[in-house]
């Protein structure tokens, strides 16, 4: 589904990604871990298409297409979804209106009929229940005045409503208490399916207790320095990132 080859990206004068290689197949959940500043979030945003980064080398193939050649909204319409670490507030636009506009925009792109009012309401009701969200949230402006936890839940709600093929979660666990973390994880797990790929970007192993990954990658210094199964996350929990950074330096030196 997603194949990243030797991806290099820079922001202004700083090279952040220094040759990422990663393959995500449909049905898999990949966790990307790493210390602060390792390039985790950059990778997430480069995949979503944020224009602050310059791609200097490498390629990304998504469903057989050149992802880097696609506009941000085109990627979204083709099923790439990013749950933001810092969701953005849109004043005066209700959550409900925004969700419907997004769904219809994507449907329009894919030459599908617009969603009916009834279908939309039914779907929304189901997903709200899944995430333990009150429907009054839908009449509030997008993320405006939301608590940190509400914002994160709202991201997962959008993901549930848009039903992406490739979901990227950028530090969705940050700022969540344990109850919220459980609910959010439950929402993500409900979306696990053989057709869907999920990339979970996180600093801590904690989230991976609830969203159990098929593969774990450790990013350090702009490169994936280790890959393994879920036990790698536990190893990190034990030893911390410090031992890796030595390893990363060693790799960089090579």
């Amino acid at each position, binding site marked *: 589904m997603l194949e990243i080859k030797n991806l290099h990206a820079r922001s202004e004068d700083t090279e952040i990604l220094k040759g990422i290689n990663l393959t995500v197949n449909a049905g898999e959940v990949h966790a990307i871990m790493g210390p602060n500043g390792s390039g985790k979030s950059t990778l997430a945003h480069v995949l979503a298409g944020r224009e*602050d980064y310059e791609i200097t080398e490498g390629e990304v193939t998504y469903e057989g297409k050149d992802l880097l050649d696609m506009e941000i909204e085109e990627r979204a319409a083709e099923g790439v979804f990013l749950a933001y670490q810092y969701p*953005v507030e849109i004043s*005066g636009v209700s959550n409900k209106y925004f969700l419907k506009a*997004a769904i219809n*925009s994507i449907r329009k792109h894919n030459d599908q009929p617009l969603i009916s009012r009834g279908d939309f309401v039914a779907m929304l009701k189901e997903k709200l229940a899944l995430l333990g969200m009150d429907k009054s949230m839908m009449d509030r402006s997008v993320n405006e005045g939301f608590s940190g936890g509400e914002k994160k839940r709202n991201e997962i709600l959008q993901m549930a409503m848009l039903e992406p093929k490739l979901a990227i979660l950028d530090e969705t666990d940050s700022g969540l208490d344990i109850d919220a973390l459980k609910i959010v994880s439950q929402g993500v797990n409900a979306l696990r399916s053989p057709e869907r790929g999920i990339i979970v970007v996180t600093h801590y192993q904690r989230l991976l207790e609830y969203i159990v990954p098929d593969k774990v990658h450790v990013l350090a210094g702009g490169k994936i320095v280790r890959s393994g199964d879920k036990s790698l996350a536990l190893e990190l929990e034990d030893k911390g990132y410090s031992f890796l950074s030595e390893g990363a330096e060693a790799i960089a030196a090579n």
Partner: protein
Amino acid sequence: MSSENALLEEYAQREYEHGFITDIEADSIPAGLSEEVVRLISQKKNEPEWLLEWRLKAYRHWLTLEEPKWHNVKYPPIDYQASVYYSAPVQKPKLNSLDEVDPVLLETYEKLGIPLEEQKMLANVAVDAVFDSVSIVTTFRETLEKHGVIFCPFSEAVHRFPELVQKYLGSVVPYSDNFFASLNSAVFSDGSFCYIPKGVRCPMELSTYFRINAQNTGQFERTLIVAEEGSYVSYLEGCTAPKRDENQLHAAVVELVAMEDAQIKYSTVQNWYPGDSEGKGGIYNFVTKRGACRGDNSQISWTQVETGSAITWKYPSVILQGDNSVGEFYSVAVTANHQQADTGTKMIHIGKNTKSTIISKGISAGVGQNSYRGEVKIMKGATNARNFSQCDSLLIGDKCGAHTFPYIEVRNTTGKVEHEASTSKVGEDQIYYLRQRGLPTEDAVNMIVNGFCKEVYDVLPMEFAVEARKLLNVSLEGSVG
């Protein structure tokens, strides 16, 4: 950030869809302004002596005035002798039904989306259509007259209801009020007159649609609305003009009078030609609008969506004379390309327990300059007066400007005045977020801008709100790369 600039750089192009010209024979007088021209206009309209005298007083006063300079808009000097002060499409003098209206004119309004044929009318909106200097037709008159509501062209009201016109004309905006109001008083050609008798709730929305067509012609209309005790009226005003390379002057006056327990809701969607993307052409819109809450518990609300004109200069105001009277001002003003707007309101609190609310939303794009100018005055006798003002500015791109000039004067210690202001930019973050959810850039910007204006749209009559939303989207179309 450079990518943001690249993204918003093109926030300049806009298509003006009402820019066509109607080819119709017009009865125009030669350009220029003099006492003779004032007399000629009055004569063409077969006006009574008192009105001519009033016009002449205004004209003579105007000669003593200088064009104001305090505003935050820049334009080359206006040559008042180059403008034509009267132009009327040639047609039968008296119109009693639509069958008598020149089909070319009907077609014009059809094209503008204002079908005048009654069977095709928007449900429950009576329209007075003003074309250049004259009103060409007013629909739904019979229905309204059954309720005792008078809604007719101003020039007709002068003949049919002279006492009412004489009593109220200039009673809120005197002929000596300001440079542009004096000019209007001298040369005004037509407009709408509206009278709601005691206790009547006007059964439909009243609407005037203004169209400037002829070249080099100024439009100087006058609207007078009187709401008697306990009455209610909602009035809508729309405006368009053809695309022309030269600037055209529009100097209107609107006067509202609300008696005890009466309520007037006045909504404007102003879409005069704004000029091209280089700043060539466009309407100079210098308008004086004021309402008087004469009676206790009366209420006047101004709602405006200003998307057109090269220059917008208007301050719809309320004089809160009656105790417990309420004044409201809700405004969305857009300046894209080279447009400039200096707009706001005045709330003058005279009566006790008077209350005013000001919500102003300014949107600047391109190299547009948008100023909010507002005055809240609480007079000595205005015990327990309250005002709340909120002025928000939204910037799109980094070449435009937003300015706020609030003036507050409180002469009664029980008065309470609150002022909130904010300036924000349509952020790259917001656009990125919405695009990541599948919305193309233009839809994303429209969503952000419309969200910004929501508080104002919420108080617009439904059909107008839809219209305003569309207009705003068109105004900003193509502005984002």
